[in-house]
């Protein structure tokens, strides 16, 4: 179960609605993530939640060891192109690990397990239907990576 607190519950609830919302400073334009009490750039309190389409680029990734027979996991750091300075740690799905390259464009999707709905990313040209190896082998794995519109 995800650990959430008073500062992150709104973000979390957005995820459950499959909505990636990032705060932006109304006064200086800085994107603010993870959730912070005010803009770290200009100290303004005027943060405005902005829903993103979820275009991203891969900053780096690793391939953690998985149980024998389990699908491979690509654990990636994704920079959001719509929100400079904002990154997410997510699974990269819908692509064979050996085809993953740094800098590749990515699109937002979602997957869920018993704990909730989480963002994930896949290649922009992927079949928007359910990508392979999406979840962690649990039932459901209702991932729909690639549903986000790249370059929005």
């Amino acid at each position, binding site marked *: 179960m*995800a650990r959430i607190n008073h500062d992150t519950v709104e973000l979390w609830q957005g995820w459950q609605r499959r909505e990636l919302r990032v705060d932006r400073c109304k006064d200086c334009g800085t994107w603010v993530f993870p959730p912070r009490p005010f803009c770290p750039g200009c100290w303004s309190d005027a943060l405005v939640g902005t829903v993103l389409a979820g275009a991203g680029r891969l*900053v780096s990734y690793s391939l953690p060891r998985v149980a024998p027979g389990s699908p491979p996991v690509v654990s990636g750091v994704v920079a959001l192109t719509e929100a400079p300075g904002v990154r997410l740690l997510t699974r990269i799905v819908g692509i064979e690990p050996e085809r993953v390259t740094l800098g590749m464009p990515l699109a937002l999707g979602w997957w869920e397990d018993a704990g909730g709905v989480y963002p994930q990313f896949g290649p922009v040209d992927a079949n928007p239907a359910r990508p392979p190896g999406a979840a962690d082998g649990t039932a459901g794995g209702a991932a729909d990576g690639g549903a986000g519109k790249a370059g929005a």
Partner: protein
Amino acid sequence: MSGLEQAAIVGIGWSELARDSGVGPGSLVARAARAAVLDSGVARDAIDGVVGVYGTDSPTLWPGYVVDALGLPDVRWWDTAQPPSVTALSTAANAVLTGNCDYALCYHGKYRWANTSVVGRGDPLRQAPAHEFDPGLDHALVEHGGSMLWAARVMREHMARHGSTRADFARIAVNNRTNAARNPRAVFRTPMTVEDYLAAPMIDDPMCLLDMDAPIDGALAVVVTTERRARDLPHPPVLVEAFASALPERNDGLLWPEADGLAARRAVGHLFARSDLTPADIDLAYPYDGFTILAMLWLEALYTGPGEGPALLRESWSDDEQRLRLFGRVPVCTHGGNLSEGRATQGFGSVIEAVQQLRGDAGERQVDAARTAVITGGMAGTNRSTILVSG
């Protein structure tokens, strides 16, 4: 440094460092602390300051436990610090220089918790720590991401940006293992080769088993006082020349692989700005090596431009000795680092080793005429700390 009195390390001690010590974290810290006080020659009742690691997945023992376990009758100053405990050492140095206390006991320890090892999970007497490693991100935001092992992504980014290879990282791992063969404290002492490294199983590709320190049980401690008081004590004092630290620009250190080397570079810049010494003057280098990529980034911060660490290591590699001599001269991690002593040391093993070397007391590891050492600690979500010591 500028005529001001300096703090001196006058005692060192450690518990057994072991995969499974069979004792609790309190016993480890108490044993290390007692050994350090005995080594210092300071009377037990004269220890009037205590500072140690307290947080994240460390033993989470506050100084009150140590006061009780050692029977210290009149402690008048105490504090706690986040690992790596190079910061605790600087806090102890400040305390004796300001007169908050005369003799400060400074400890570090780590334990093989249920959340850090399979053995830990199988032992009902190993409780979960009070805190878990939190790189500053709320767990909800990252725990689904597949891997919390940020250093693997830092390594990948370094390889992609600078063309470093696994063989480059192997030199760090092999160097440390070669040195550990002469270190009776070390847990991993069996010699290994670059080929052994390349054949090791991947844990989080590109990071293999031999790129990372292993969870173990252990604690280490030092006694710190002023240079003037140190003259009355049995060992030649080792002076704390300078200290500097940096915090990451972003608290979510899991996500900014390229930022790590930059912050290390900032800490090193501040360190040498406070000393008459330059990096070229240093005789012994102790880059933090919880992961080989971190040692690479610290060596780059100390000695080269970004991405030039692999070339430095290639030029410094001795095939005959199976270890590094930077610029043909400076040995690296003469004790074998965290990679050989285990994660319990978290860089504090470098403090113990540097003191032994600068005392001229390092046995068959002794480096001739070693007068100065630089020690670095941490990376990513933790602080980046650096300290210079001289004999």
